[in-house]
């Protein structure tokens, strides 16, 4: 549409020369598009804005009937999303320690429930990431640069495992894990997930795009395969490494059903949050409920913002053949 109006310039030339010429016009034409995108973005991010605003509100503003009888105009809209009676960071401490207004026993930081959830989640997430990176790098390198019998068949096997719904493996895995004596042990949350087909594919794609000459030069210099991987291939594929690391971290941190089945005795943050949500007090103290939710998603969001650019590049590349 932009082209059609600029090519038909003579028609409206006399009146709109000023607007039609130069960068001002181009800039003006972009405004509605950006405006539309920003409105869509605000709609998309409303839950987060609401969550953070609500988590900072004082108790009186964060009950289900806090909105009763308010005027529905734009003025109250801001008060709706942001605390009027002062920002209250104390909510986060109270959510972390589970100190509701009605709680009898008050916890301090170290015996707080969320401390335990965090330790469990961090250990299992980092364990999973570590395992995935090792197994995937090795396998991806083999599929990218080595020639061996049955390579194609094994690759098809990898593809086939992608279509297996993970639910189908939970019950058998529970039996395996309990026979190994790992129930209610963090290893149960780590070991089954230390291989990722997605990471293998992604790393393989990156490894294959590294010029073959580098590999051959390394071999001539007496560099072993592992040396090549560590010194050349991995540094050159940092986007893929970051993407698979964050994906595994997300998968571990956000998983619900498997920790619920295999290890309810060592609750992760998600299970802890579920316990926290199910607490009757959160029905009347929305500020603590939202503070708890913020605590549960904070690490992943922080990590995401640190690596977002390369992470998104990695995902974008995974979709293209």
């Amino acid at each position, binding site marked *: 549409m932009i*082209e059609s109006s600029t090519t038909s310039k003579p028609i409206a030339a006399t009146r709109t020369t000023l607007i039609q010429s130069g960068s001002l016009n181009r800039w003006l034409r972009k405004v509605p598009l950006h405006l539309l995108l920003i409105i869509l973005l605000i709609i998309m991010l409303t839950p987060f804005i609401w969550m953070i605003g609500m988590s900072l509100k004082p108790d009186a503003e964060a009950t289900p009937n806090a909105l009763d009888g308010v005027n529905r105009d734009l003025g109250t809209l801001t008060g709706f999303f942001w605390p009027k009676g002062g920002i209250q960071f104390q909510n986060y401490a109270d959510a972390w320690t589970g100190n509701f207004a009605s709680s009898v026993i008050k916890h301090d930081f170290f015996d707080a429930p969320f401390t335990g959830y965090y330790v469990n989640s961090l250990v299992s997430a980092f364990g999973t990431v570590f395992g995935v990176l090792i197994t995937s790098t090795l396998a991806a390198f083999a599929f990218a640069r080595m020639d061996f019998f049955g390579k194609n068949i094994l690759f098809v096997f990898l593809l086939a495992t992608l279509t297996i*719904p993970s*639910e189908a493996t939970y019950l058998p895995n529970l039996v395996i894990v309990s026979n190994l004596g790992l129930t209610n042990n963090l290893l149960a949350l780590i070991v089954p997930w230390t291989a990722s087909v997605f990471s293998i594919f992604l790393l393989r794609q990156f490894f294959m795009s590294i010029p073959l000459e580098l590999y051959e030069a390394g071999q001539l210099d007496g560099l072993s395969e592992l040396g090549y991987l560590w010194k050349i291939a991995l540094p050159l594929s940092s986007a893929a490494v970051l993407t698979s690391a964050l994906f595994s971290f997300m998968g571990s941190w956000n998983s619900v059903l498997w920790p619920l089945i295999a290890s309810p005795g060592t609750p992760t943050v998600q299970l802890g949050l579920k316990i926290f949500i199910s607490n009757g007090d959160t029905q009347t103290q929305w500020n603590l409920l939202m503070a708890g939710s913020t605590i*549960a998603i904070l690490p992943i969001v922080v990590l995401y913002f640190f690596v977002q650019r390369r992470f998104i590049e990695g995902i974008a590349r995974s979709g293209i053949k």
Partner: protein
Amino acid sequence: MATVQNKPLLTTSPDLSAAEEQQLNRRKFNKKLRRSFKAYLFIAPAFIILVVFHFLPIFYAFFLSLYKRISVVKGIVPPSDKFAGFFNYQTLFSNGEFWNAFFNTIGYAAGVVVIGLLLALGLALLLDKVKEGRNFYRTAFFLPNVTSLVAVAAVWKVMFTSYSSTALTKPQLNHPGGLLNWIFSGFGLPMQRWLLDERGIFNLIFNDGNQGARANYDINWVATVLELILALVIFGLLMAIGRNIQRPQLERVIGGLGLLLALPLAALWLYLMVVEILGFLDNPLGSGIVIILLLGAAYWLYIQLPSIRKNWYGWASNYSIAVGIGAVLAVLGNLARGGQWNGWLSGPSLSMFCIIAIAIWHSLGFNVVILLAGLTNISRELYEAARLDGAQGFAMFWRMTVPLLSPTLFFLLIISTISALQSFSLIYAIFINGGNSTTIPHTISVLATYYYQAAFGGGSDSDVNGFGYGSAIVIFMLLFILSLTLIQQNLLGKRVNYD
């Protein structure tokens, strides 16, 4: 790749004797065998984990599904007196709860995949036009995707809260509850019970949630049918003519005629809208929205002015088509109010609809990022060539963008279907309250939650729970997902344009 590296060894000169050649071949074979062992060492860690925890479990699940009333398995083989053959499958297929969960899953997946992909495509097309700040938008739209569904479910549950006091059974104007009802009441729309409402959405839209048709709703059948016929005739005529006529002279006549026919209809429509809007304008939010929409429309018309002047008959016929579509929709909506919206016809329940909306919100960013990558991959020269050939607007989108994007769309279709069919966390976080006391509404129960309830919800004291029955459910899910993927590949895979 590695074969390239072996090339120098493979070149056999013709003057080699047969024995030498054989020896060379054996050396080559031995070398590859040695390399293979090394490669197997490299892939072993990943494959051991995949085989033990992802591949063999399927066969073991099938094995477990042959036993009934087992909940704890010591060792690998359950006690032989619990062996029941295909009894679990028999129970499964004759169980109403299972079929309910199955059809709910299909509805859920269809909603999430179809609506989700369409929205993502629209957003990706918008983002494709942006140069400055594209990275910022991409990062921000992707954000929901990294957050956990349990936390997100807590937030949405609060936003969907429908009344502020337990004494109420219906949201009221001065007790709106959460954000959504606040916005709805701000726009003068009826407030809803959202996640708690199990009535179908068509029932809610067309019948105000009454169980049957509205008792005293009179339809002027003669007028309605005439309206419908008129609208269809205008619409069909203009569609057919506007598309096929090549002669500008005739198109001009048809465009004028269409304008004449469509103008009265448009005037009536506009009048009705103004009446509606006047009620809407009472509140500042409503008038703000109307002003923004009017400004947007005015701006768009201003941008299009040169093109309208150049080709007013084309615009007139397109405009008449739009009016025709609007009239058909208005008449159909009018007719729908008299219908019976019970059972299947009432559509997905409002609570299921909310769940689908949350799921789409959560997965949108991922789809957008992948589609955007696909779009930027289409070369600009192809677009230019098509534009020089006269392709514009919708034709460009349908004949250029969609075919060139089809591999990406297909990839997303398969990925999101598989993940939608096994989604669990969202419904678990919203509807299952603590421990194992499970309270999932009838219209929300999907296969994954049904599986969770059956296998882990309540011991193994009946034929419809325990590990055996649960395994039968996942084996069914597995076969269903596999066959659906195969069907998608066979039906659509051939139309996908790889090059």
